[in-house]
């Protein structure tokens, strides 16, 4: 079963913030986040391995609540380059499975 992502799509103006959520009905070993630009392959952003872990680089960060089997991706002061489809990937006994993605559009 794939993880559930929300929202399905977000439209922002440059400089605004966004949060993308990911939840799973199964126990998770880790949570991955990827971004895919149109016509390209998904590219790794970060991985969270432990409950309570938070990570970030530049103005993109994520948290992992192991007990709730949830993760959130935070995009702060969004830039045009942040546009794309964001996927959370959850690693469980079934392997690395992705959600349906969140389409993020940043407008100038």
């Amino acid at each position, binding site marked *: 079963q794939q993880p559930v992502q929300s929202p399905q799509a977000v439209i922002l103006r440059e400089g605004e913030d966004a949060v993308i959520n990911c939840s799973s009905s199964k126990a998770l070993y*880790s949570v*991955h986040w990827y971004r895919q630009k149109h016509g390209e392959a998904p590219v*790794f952003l970060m991985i969270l*391995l432990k409950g309570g872990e938070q990570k970030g680089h530049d103005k993109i960060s994520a948290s992992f609540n192991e007990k709730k089997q949830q993760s959130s991706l935070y995009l702060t002061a969004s830039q045009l380059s942040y546009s794309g489809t964001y*996927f959370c*990937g959850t*690693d469980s006994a079934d392997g*690395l499975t992705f959600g*349906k*993605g969140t389409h993020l559009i940043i407008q100038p």
Partner: protein
Amino acid sequence: DTAVSQTPKYLVTQMGNDKSIKCEQNLGHDTMYWYKQDSKKFLKIMFSYNNKELIINETVPNRFSPKSPDKAHLNLHINSLELGDSAVYFCASSQVGGQGKAFFGQGTRLTVV
């Protein structure tokens, strides 16, 4: 050097044909995957291979069969192609157990006419 390489990048074929997509990774990873991405951009996992053993197999028609001659290669064979098979297929690899990030190939856009 490309970490995960797929060939071909584009594939146009007629219904009923049999085709293969090749995937190779030079990262020394133990796990390789095949994903199908349809027009709605949903990344659906098809197969996962760990040390040459199939560890998951989603509800994929048996017309699709993965073949792994060695740890660095996971090819996808598709028999009797149907219109609904048209999609972008991605190969990926990661360390065992998904504790490492996954690297994706460039994708193969398959069009069945």
